[in-house]
C-alpha cells in the first residue's frame, strides 16, 4: 500500500528522548526521593539474574508511568458524557504530577466509547473525551504542546462483554506517555 503521502504529525525522537528523560529522572529523584525510589524487589525466587540490572521500570518511562499511576492513567465517563468528575480530577492530578516531574515527556490521550453507539459518532465522542482530559491536564499546568489526542471510538474495547459493567470500563480516556 502506498503511504508516502501521509506525514507524521508527531516527531519521533526515539532513543534520544529516552536518554534525556532518563537523565532528568535521576535529577528529579533527588528532590523527592522518598516517593521515587524504585519498588522493592519481590521475593528472591531465582538467583540467576544479573545483580547489576536495576529492578522495576526505568524512571520516566511509560512503564514507570503505568506503575506509578496504579490505574489513574485512565479516567471513566458516563454514557454519552465527557465531563470530568471529582474522581477523574484526582486521577488527572496524579498524571499531571508525573508529567510535571518529567517535563520532556510527551503523552497521547486516547479517547474511547462503549459499543452502544454508532461508529462515527463514537469517534467524535472519543475525541471529545480525550480533549476533556487534555484540557484538565493543561489547566493543572501541563504544557498543551506536550499532549496529543486520538480517538478510537468503539473500536478498541478493554472489557469485552456486552453489559453495563463492560461498557462502563470502555467509556474511557487513557493517557499514554511516549517513550
Amino acid at each position, binding site marked *: *500500500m*502506498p*503511504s508516502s*503521502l*501521509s*506525514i*507524521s*504529525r*508527531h516527531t519521533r525522537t526515539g532513543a534520544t528522548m529516552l536518554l534525556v528523560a532518563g537523565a532528568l529522572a535521576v535529577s528529579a529523584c533527588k528532590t523527592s526521593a522518598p516517593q521515587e525510589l524504585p519498588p522493592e524487589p519481590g521475593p528472591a525466587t531465582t538467583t540467576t539474574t544479573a545483580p547489576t540490572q536495576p529492578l522495576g521500570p526505568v524512571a520516566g518511562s511509560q512503564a514507570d508511568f503505568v506503575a506509578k499511576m496504579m490505574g489513574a492513567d485512565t479516567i471513566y465517563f458516563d454514557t*454519552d458524557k*465527557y465531563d470530568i468528575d471529582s474522581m477523574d480530577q484526582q486521577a488527572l492530578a496524579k498524571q499531571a504530577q508525573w508529567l510535571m516531574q518529567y517535563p520532556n515527556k510527551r503523552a497521547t490521550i486516547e479517547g474511547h466509547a462503549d*459499543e*452502544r*453507539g*454508532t*461508529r*462515527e*459518532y463514537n*469517534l*467524535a*465522542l472519543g*475525541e*471529545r*473525551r*480525550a*480533549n*476533556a482530559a487534555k*484540557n484538565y491536564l493543561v489547566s493543572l499546568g501541563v504544557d498543551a504542546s506536550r499532549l496529543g*489526542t*486520538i*480517538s478510537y471510538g468503539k*473500536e478498541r*474495547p*478493554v472489557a*469485552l*462483554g*456486552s453489559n453495563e459493567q463492560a461498557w462502563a470500563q470502555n467509556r474511557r480516556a487513557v493517557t499514554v506517555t511516549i517513550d
Partner: protein
Amino acid sequence: MTARSKTALSLSLALAFALAGAAPLAAQAQPADAMPSPDATVEAEQGLEADDGGLTGSVSADGAWQDLGIAITTFATDADVPTSTNAGSTAALGRALSTVIAADLKNNGLFKPSGPVGLPQPSFGEVQAPNYPIWTYRSADMLVQGYVHANPGGDLTVGCYLYDVALKQQLAKAGWQVGPADWRRAAHKCADMVYSRLSGESPFFDSRIAYIAETGPKSHRMKRLAVMDSDGANMRYLTSGQATALTPRYSPDYSKILYLSYLNGEPSIYVYDLRTDTQKLLVRSRNSTFAPRWSPDGKWVLYSMAIAGNTDIYKIPASGGEPQKLTDSPGIDIGGSFSPDGRKIVFESDRSGTQQIYVMNADGSQQQRITFFGGRSATPEWSPRGDQIAFTHIAGDLRIAVMTPNGRNMRYLTNSWQDEAPTWSPNGRIVQFFRTEKNSGVASIWQVDLTGRNERKLPTPVGASDPAWGPIRP
C-alpha cells in the same frame, strides 16, 4: 490483487431494448447472430438520475409480480467449449449464469423463482422459441431463458430472454459481451432486466459494495478495506490490515473509495484510487478527519473534522481546493448525505443534547432539525430516489428505520440488538446495514427491503461492517 479486475470494464451492453409487450421479434435465427456488435451504447448509465418521476414513499406492496412463478432455466450454448472463466466450459457457465440469476431474484425476497435445478433444459434452438406447452403444464407464469457463446478472442456473449408463458410472448431480451472475469456481471444484468421488466423498478443487481472486513478477537480486531459484488461474490481486500480502516464510500463512478485509515496512528480520510491502487490524504491537517461522503455527482466530498474535541462538517472539491466549513455549533456535527439533486444535506448533530438528524442546504444555510420522535437518531442516508431517509434509531437497541425528508412517517425496518449504518441499493428499494452480535461483537452485512419483511444476511468470507453500496455500474 489482479490487474484484471480493477481495470476498465470489458463488459459492454448490446441489445439494450427491453421491449414491452411488442410483437415477438421475427428473428428466429441463431441468437448469436441477433447480437449486434458490442460497441452499442450503454443505456444503464443514466438510470439513477433519470428515474425520479413522482415516486412516493410507498413500498412495493405485495402485488401480483412478487407472486409470479418464474422458471429460470439453464442457459444453453451453441457449442460446449472451454472458457477461461472460473465456471468452466460454456455449458457449465450456462448453468452457473442461471444459478446466479435465480439467487439474485430469490435472495432479496423479491420473487420465488424455480430452477435451474429440476427444470427441463431448453436446447439452444429453443432459447428464442420457447416450448410453451411444457411451461404451461408446469404452471410457470414467467420463463427466463438464455445462451452462452464463446467468441474467438476469449470473450463471451450472453443472451437473456424473458417470456410471458400465458401470453406466449417475449417481454424483454438483452445481450452482453463480457470478458471471462466479468461473466457474473452478465448474470446480474439479466436479473436486473427481469426484475425491472416485472416490477417496473430501476435495476440494482449489477452494482458493487465497499465494506470493512473484520477478523480476529474483539480485543484486537483487524479491519480491512474490501470490495465485493452486490451478491457477495468477487471479494477483494484493498488494505493489508496493519492500519485500521473504517467507513468506506464508493465514488459514483466506482473509480475511487473514500475511507478512514489509522495509518501512522492518525485517523484521517484517504482517497483510494482503484485504477492505480494508490491512495492519498484527502486533506492535510493536524486534526482528525472522518465520516467521508461523496456528492451524487462526485464533484464534492463532505468530511467531518474534530478540533479540540468539537466536530464539524466540511465540504471540499473532490479535485482538491479550499475546504468550506458547513456547520459551526458547539457539539458534534458529523456525517452528511446529499439529496439526489445535490441541493440539500441531511446530517447528524448532538447540538440539542442528543444525536438527532438535521437538514441543511448544500452551502450550510438553513439548518433544521427533522427528528422529534424520541430516542437518538444517527447516520442518515438519503435514498437515491429522494423520497426517504434511512437512519439508525437508538433507544436501547440500535435499529434501522426510514422516514420522509421532513422527518415524518418514521418506520422501523429491523428489530435486532445492534443494527447500524444503512446504505441504499442503487434503486432505493433495499437498505443494507451491518449487524453486531452481542458479546462476540461479530459484525455482518444484512439487506432488508422497504417492507421490513424480507431480511437476509449477505455471504461474506469473514466478519463485515460499514457497507457502502455503489450505483449501477457504468
